[in-house]
């Protein structure tokens, strides 16, 4: 039988294949206790987390840009 962490790692990879990065990060978290020492696992997990952070920052920055341009107009 596959253990829950193995299933979670597999689901994370499938989510990556579907470009569902948020889901993938959740599955990686579930598998981390079992695979935490595995370099490939860690690389994929950290890259996914970094990508999510970048996406979040871009979204926030694009929101902030609007604010900045309004502020610049006022100034």
């Amino acid at each position, binding site marked *: *039988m*596959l*253990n*829950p*962490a*193995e*299933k979670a*790692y*597999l689901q994370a*990879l*499938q989510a*990556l*294949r579907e*470009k569902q*990065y948020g889901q993938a990060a959740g599955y990686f978290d579930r598998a981390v*206790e*079992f*695979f*935490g*020492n*595995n370099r490939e*696992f860690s*690389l*994929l997990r950290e*890259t*996914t987390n*970094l*990508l999510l952070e*970048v*996406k979040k*920052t*871009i979204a926030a*920055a*694009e929101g902030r*840009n609007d604010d900045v341009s309004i502020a610049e107009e006022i100034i």
Partner: protein
Amino acid sequence: MSRTDTLKSLEVVLESFLERAVSLKSGRLDVLDGINRLDDIARLKSEPGPFPQPDLSDRIGEWFAQHSGWMEDTTLRPSDRNRIGQILGGIRQELNGLGQSTPSTEKIQTEIARWQSLMTPASSQSRPTAGRKIVLRKGPESLDEAGVHPSNQDSIGLFAESLKTMAGLFADFSRDRLHLMSILDDSLKTASLKKSREALLLSASIIYYLKQNGYMVEPFVKRLKEAEQLQKRSRAGA
């Protein structure tokens, strides 16, 4: 280039990296997905209630049909074959335990037997005992106290390697020794001084063997725990 443009470039690079990394594992992913689905079927079947036999027959039949190519080609690793053989063995045993024979269950039994004969060596195939249902259930795995992780890559192969190393250590320690306790003493020293994980595992195995044979093992258990803590600290400091 603005900060946002830089971040967008990084986003593209990261997405591309992940896409390529997953693409490289595409073949393995398909295999693991197949094993996972068979595992899901086995788990559903193990639970009482809402899954009637025809549904089970359909699901396993569908799985066999989808993965018939695995019987001929070399996609599967030996560890994959072992796993599939074990899961099928569990399904087969449970079907035997149900004691209901219908054409569809007989067909499944025949197909399972065919797959098992191809997936596992004859010597390791399960032999179900008539009228007795044995189900092994595995709980969620976690870190042991020594912080040892079984690898996801090939736990069976890695364990086999570990066993070989332990056998080598045992052969070394047993030279000129008259009693198993002397070997255990050497093994515990190696586990503590050289931080050898295999020596630790060998020591634990010998202690359990001695305990099973009525020896007082408490002092050795204490030393084993100390060695384990030493190794744990050593890993944490590495």
